[in-house]
């Protein structure tokens, strides 16, 4: 019997999975606690998205089990969101899709959440007209509107420029501090992600190493995976704002 830490939100144990005959994951364990930001890194094909899908319940693993804190509310931000241009839907309408309550009851809340992610002016924009950076914030707003206990973000900063990415990770940290949520995210932006994470899990079919960014950086298996050249050159990127952006107006072009 393992004692469940009351702070643990989501806990995957001994996960093993194959696609056809190819082993994608073997004996992977990842847990996320309240207020903790856990970042999954690893090369392409390392199984990052697969483990996330398993932890979300989208995929049944062949081996192992996923424990969820009872009543856990998950806010999920998928890697890609392609809105069929044949479907006319504005940001407000899109946000309403994620909640059970009627539109009138969450009218004010919707605007607060949009403001929180810096997308306050996008409410009436059509989903199919959003840029990569705008879409990212709208997806985050939809996840937050559900008052989640944990945010699960699959490569949230894909298709956004470096400044946009740094801003986004800073936003995630701020949201964690304010809302006391746990965060599980997949990323391959080593430099950017190291600054805004509590725990890094380095995955390559199995967990190569895990720990604080500083620990992982100096771990031999991390150096072996990414090359000591790259690993030693990671300066933990701290992003400082010296000027203000207006995210509602700014277009983050990819």
């Amino acid at each position: 019997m393992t004692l469940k830490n009351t702070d643990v939100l989501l806990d995957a144990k001994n996960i093993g999975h194959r696609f056809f005959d190819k082993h994608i994951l073997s004996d992977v364990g990842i847990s996320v606690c309240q207020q903790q930001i856990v970042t999954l890194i690893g090369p392409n094909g390392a199984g990052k998205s697969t483990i996330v899908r398993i932890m979300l319940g989208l995929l049944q693993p062949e081996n192992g089990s996923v424990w969820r804190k009872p009543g856990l509310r998950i806010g999920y931000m998928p890697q890609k969101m392609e809105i069929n241009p044949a479907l006319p839907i504005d940001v407000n309408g899109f946000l309403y899709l994620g909640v059970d309550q009627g539109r009138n009851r969450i009218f004010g809340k919707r605007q607060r959440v949009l403001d929180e992610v810096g997308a306050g002016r996008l409410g009436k924009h059509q989903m199919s007209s959003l840029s990569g950076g705008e879409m990212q914030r709208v997806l985050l707003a939809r996840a937050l509107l559900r008052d989640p206990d944990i945010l699960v973000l699959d490569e949230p900063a894909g298709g956004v420029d470096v400044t946009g990415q740094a801003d986004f990770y800073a936003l995630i940290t701020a949201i964690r501090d304010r809302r006391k949520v746990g965060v599980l995210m997949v990323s391959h932006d080593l430099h950017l992600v190291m600054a805004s994470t509590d725990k890094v899990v380095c995955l390559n079919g199995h967990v190569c190493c895990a720990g604080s960014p500083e620990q992982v950086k100096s771990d031999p298996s991390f150096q072996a995976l990414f090359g000591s050249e790259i690993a030693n050159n990671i300066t933990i990127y701290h992003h400082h704002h010296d000027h203000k952006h207006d995210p509602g107006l700014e277009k983050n072009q990819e």
Partner: protein
Amino acid sequence: MDDFLIKAIIAGVGVAIVAAPTGCFLVWRRMAYFGDTMAHSALSGIALGYILGLAPMIGVFAVSVIIAVFLSALQKRKTVTSDTLLGIFSHGALAIGILAITFMEGRRFDIMATLFGDILAVNNTDITILYSGGALILLSLIYFWRRLLSFTVNEELAFVEGVPVTFTNLLLLIMLAMVVAIAMKIVGVLLVTSLMIIPAASIRRFSRTPEQMALFATIAGIVSVLSGISLSFQIDTPPGPTIAVSALVLFVIGQALPSKN
């Protein structure tokens, strides 16, 4: 106005009201060809209905649901791509249906009416079935609207947010099969999807919300049916294809008009 004409109009409008909003989902989910495949399988459904001694509509509904569930299961396996799969089943179902019907020749079967509809032969029973089935479809559509839409926008996100995805998919397939079954008599199996897809596509440019698009598509569908019926009456053409052509003309006009979007 002649009695048969009034019945044709009542039936045609009824079909437009259910076909257009469900057709929006075909368009949004890129399922146009999927809908076609379901419609083509209707011929086999008619044959099945005859063999089992059931009403053709029941047979069509049953076979459409089976084909749809089978197709969606097969599409997940990803060994053959969807478009190929649909091509195989669409034409396969049509060919099997025609063969099956050829064997039933002794039973006064009008194949042209099945393929292209026979709206002028609609009777009171047809209208009762159409309107009760249609009411059921519309009520489900309204009741499950948010789920259906969420599922349509992104299945994985919908799943994580607690939408029962398998149920919602099945629900949508059943609604589409019902539309095929009740619309078949009006425009025929070959043209059923035209009343579903063309009105929706015509008014996409003028809609800003999914609800608006469903409503506008319904209006466009009704206009197509009414102008199709009156045109076919005046110039003595088969009503089914005339309705489809009216929808097409409306689409072309819609593309030519300026829009705010």
